[in-house]
């Protein structure tokens, strides 16, 4: 891969520019495609610049969690495929993969994105389990935001299979999933003293710290995650949240 050093990036940023000419708070071009896999209850492909991910929603019937006997369950899994980057290895999900999945999960859960009560089939016994599986296809930075957006797109498109006589009939999918909110995630990185939205591959590699903020239509913040080995000031956090609220709206528009 290109060797773009940290020095080169900071020199370019000092001149007020990013390598690809974007403004500091600007997102790359976003493309969303719905229904890329017909056996999924819902699926999508999202491109954010050159970053590309697939997401698929599958529904199964199972027992509810004991602390929530009348609600469906959500399970989010991310596979950082070795085909998408020289730096990903084969094997079970590493901690990066797990963090990515859990942050997407948090946004969906805490915003009540899916009305889980409506996914109850028989209280304490049978509920719909919503599996969201995300696969990275090409890593050009900011898999986090792309993964969350792809999950929402797949959820939006998803239809519930028929459950009859204790069996799921996947060939009959009728009702859409009961969604109440679309919690979009926006990630900001900090390099030296500069905050950048939607980091590309090199900005992500050289970042000091990263903040992902999930926002809803009501301008509420439902999840946050600081990643990376550096630090952020309270002012950085405030600015990142502002940028996330603004960009969150734009990303949500793309889902329509």
């Amino acid at each position, binding site marked *: 891969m290109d060797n773009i050093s940290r020095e080169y990036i900071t020199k370019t940023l000092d001149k007020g520019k990013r390598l690809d000419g974007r403004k500091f708070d600007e997102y790359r071009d976003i493309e969303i495609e719905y229904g890329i896999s017909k*056996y999924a209850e819902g699926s999508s492909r999202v491109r954010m610049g050159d970053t590309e991910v697939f997401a698929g929603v599958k529904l199964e019937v199972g027992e509810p969690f004991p602390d929530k006997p009348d609600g469906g369950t959500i399970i989010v899994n991310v596979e950082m495929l070795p085909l998408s980057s020289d730096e990903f290895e084969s094997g079970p999900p590493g901690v990066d993969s797990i963090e990515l999945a859990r942050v997407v999960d948090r946004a969906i859960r805490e915003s009540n994105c899916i009305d889980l009560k409506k996914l109850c089939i028989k209280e304490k016994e049978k509920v719909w389990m919503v599996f969201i599986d995300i696969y990275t296809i090409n890593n*050009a930075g900011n898999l986090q935001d792309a993964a969350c957006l792809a999950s929402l797109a797949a959820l939006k498109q998803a239809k519930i299979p028929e459950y009859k006589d204790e069996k799921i009939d996947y060939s009959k999918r009728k009702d859409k999933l009961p969604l109440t909110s679309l919690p979009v995630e926006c990630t900001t990185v900090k390099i030296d003293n500069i905050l950048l939205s939607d980091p590309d591959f090199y900005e992500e590699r050289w970042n000091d710290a990263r903040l992902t903020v999930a926002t809803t239509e009501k301008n509420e913040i439902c999840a946050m995650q600081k990643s990376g080995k550096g630090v952020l000031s309270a002012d950085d956090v405030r600015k990142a949240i502002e940028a996330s609220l603004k960009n969150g709206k734009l990303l949500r528009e793309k889902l329509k």
Partner: protein
Amino acid sequence: MVYSKRVDGRKFDELREIEAKVGVVKSADGSAMFKIGDTIAIAAVRGPRDLYPKFMQNPKKGILRCNYNMMSFSVDERIRPGPSRRSKEIGLVTENALLPALNLEEFPNAVVDVFIEIIQADAGTRCAGICAASLALADAGIPMKDIVCAISVGKVGGKILTDLNKKEEDYEDGSSDMPVAMLPRKNEISLLQLDGEMKQEDIDECLKLAIKACQKISEIQRNALMEKYQTNQIDDQVDKENQDG
């Protein structure tokens, strides 16, 4: 009951509709998508690159490593992410299907990694994976004797046919499935499996169908490569420079 008419109306030696595209994973050294009917496979190649652990290195030539995986949502019943015995076996037979076509002498101690992902599965996934992988290897510039193609042939309800779909694979009154991969220039078979019962003459007939099918697939693979690489004119400058160096 004799299978007199195919569920999707195809002729017995007719392939489903095929779509192939080269260069679908930007950062990979080579990549391709291969779609046949409702089965969609993508393959990406990374390499030749350093191989660790070192004891796996071959000082005489590079090695090929194939990884086959089905996305969890590629079929009705969700597949738990992670390798299975089936996916490991398919990885191995895929490796053995592609290896005879590759010339890895120029890369001792290195590895060429091939990753196949099935996005949507309607039978014939390992064959679609091999077709995609061959294109990806050519796209990556790995020296190859030929572009490998693969197709499933078989016997369904007493009839010999080409390119079984899932309904045919699951046919109640008898279904045998025979995936075949070949190097099409000399019709050399590099993958052959049989799942089901067949008589000797059935197998002969199946192989004839496979050869025919592979010629068609070969054309489609060529077109996919041409679409990405075809040049209309060569600038004189390039010729000269390459002759000197």
